[in-house]
């Protein structure tokens, strides 16, 4: 955690996410409007009354983007947790147990990896019909764990060879204990990277599914805002605020999460670091010419 806070990318990323979270929590204090109801005339440009204008049916855009942040964050972190949980358990079990267990799990993992994700989600969501944010989080968790399982398995395979695992086996520890207390803490950096990546994926995918019209239109979320705006041809009629507001919200959150992602990546793999003293030193040594 300390190393995380010393990384500039991580700090900026965390600050962005914290800002969005605070805005989402404080939504009732920041706006007096109800995000779900009509509060003004349709498609009004930003003004003192409606800071970010109104939608085609007269809802306040600012209120909707604030309350929508709650949905995006909750689906993102909820689905991210689920994806990581499934991927980590399957990865560690496959990697540690080996043999038939590994063969079966790996086969399924590879299969899920080659079936394109978004088309599969589209079919699932279409049959479930008007998927609420919770349902979207659940189907994301059920279909998107494969990448995490694969990388966790690879990492487990190398940790398994270490002496402390061998000694735990000699002492007759039970398998689940070895997996939970010897292996898991040593693959935690991979699990962390997997978690952040999954959260980003979940936020983007939820917005995409809703934009394509598969979400529950009553839910207040950024994806639904985009869907409504697209359906109302907001750009053609000049109501840019209705489209650009959720766009920038999504972009902002995406950038924050990605900065964090790259920072964790750099910390887990020190060779990728640039700018700090170690990086420069190793570059000097490697180039052998002292160019920096």
């Amino acid at each position, binding site marked *: 955690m300390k190393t995380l806070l010393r990384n500039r990318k991580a700090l900026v990323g965390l600050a962005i996410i914290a800002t969005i979270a605070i805005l989402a929590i404080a939504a009732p204090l920041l706006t007096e409007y109800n995000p779900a109801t009509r509060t003004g005339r349709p498609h009004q440009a930003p003004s003192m009354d409606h800071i970010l204008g109104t939608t085609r049916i007269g809802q306040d855009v600012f209120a909707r983007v604030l309350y929508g942040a709650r949905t995006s964050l909750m689906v993102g972190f909820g689905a991210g947790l689920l994806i990581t949980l499934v991927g980590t358990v399957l990865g560690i079990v496959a990697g540690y147990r080996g043999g038939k267990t590994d063969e079966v799990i790996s086969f399924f993992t590879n299969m899920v990896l080659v079936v394109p994700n978004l088309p599969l989600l589209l079919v*699932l969501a279409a049959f479930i019909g008007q998927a609420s944010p919770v349902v979207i989080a659940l189907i994301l968790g059920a279909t998107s764990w494969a990448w995490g399982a694969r990388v966790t398995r690879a990492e487990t395979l190398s940790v398994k060879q270490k002496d402390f695992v061998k000694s735990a086996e000699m002492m007759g520890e039970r398998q689940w204990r070895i997996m939970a207390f010897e292996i898991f803490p040593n693959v935690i950096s991979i699990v962390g990277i997997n978690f952040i990546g999954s959260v980003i994926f979940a936020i983007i995918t939820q917005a995409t599914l809703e934009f394509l019209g598969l979400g529950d239109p009553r839910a207040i979320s950024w994806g639904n805002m985009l869907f409504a705006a697209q359906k109302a041809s907001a750009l053609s009629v000049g109501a840019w605020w209705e489209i650009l507001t959720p766009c920038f919200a999504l972009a902002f959150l995406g950038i924050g999460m990605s900065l964090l992602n*790259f920072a964790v990546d750099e910390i887990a793999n020190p060779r990728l670091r640039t700018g700090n003293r170690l990086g420069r030193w190793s570059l000097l040594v490697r180039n052998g010419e002292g160019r920096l």
Partner: protein
Amino acid sequence: MAFLFRRLAFYLAAFLAAATINFFLPRLMPGDPIQLMFSSAGAELPPESLEALKLTFGFVDGPLWQQYLTYLGSIFTGDLGRSIKYFPLPVTSVLGHALIWTLVLMGTATVISFVLGTWLGVMAAWKRGSRFDVIVSVTSIFATSVPAVVTSLIVLFVFGFTLDWFPNGYAADPSLDPAFSLQYIASVAYHGVLPMVTLCTVLIGGFTVTMRNNMINLLGEDYIVMARAKGLSDRRVMLWYAARNALLPTVSSLAIAIGTILGGSLVTEVVFNYPGLGNVLYQAILARDYPVIQGQLLIMTATMLVANFIVDVSYVLLDPRLKAA
């Protein structure tokens, strides 16, 4: 060769899995799935389309395994049923026409961003820590972290509506007849600029970052030091010793990325009203045209598996160790 055959068998199994999901999903719906699908599609539908819908999902008289075999039989003979929205039209012809546009758009964008992204990654890794590296890395992070929906809407707003440099929709001027003429091709290219720019923006960062990270990991290897010690030129070491080997993992990540590229292109097409799979699918979702929605999964899975197989073949060509195995 054995390696490629194993992959082929695996892809067949994966396709079977996608087909099986398609078969069981409607059967998990509560109540009578056919009636449900039929009524949610709304509008006035000819009664023949109900029969066609039943056939599409293999609802024939007989036990489940017989229905399953009938369903698989029709899928593997290339019959995906009939669309509800465009009723007598078969799903394959609705999707097949759109697939060509998607492949043209996606293929061009993938090639451009793969070449450009890889080259940027090599340069950034080689000049690690320089201003060039910082600019390239930070821009890549930003570009990859913005969802494709957002990128395409912003590109459309800026270049399509505000500056009005490029058309806001369609793949070609609607007044032109599709023909192999210079005028038509020029119109297609002109209409393709904005979707292409969007897709490249979404894709390029991923290739750059993967290539940069692979390169940096390799630059510490002994054989790079050895190549330098032999007094080879910078260019030779960079391209023939480091980049060549760093390309291997990039190619395999390309295989996984194809799914993401498909997804990105779906969304981009909807925003730019491009007549590809994405747009057809969007219309199908709005009309709850289930046969088309499930057909796209099969067609896209097949596309992805073929693309993966091409990557496998190129992998064998790039890595001589696999030929011996």
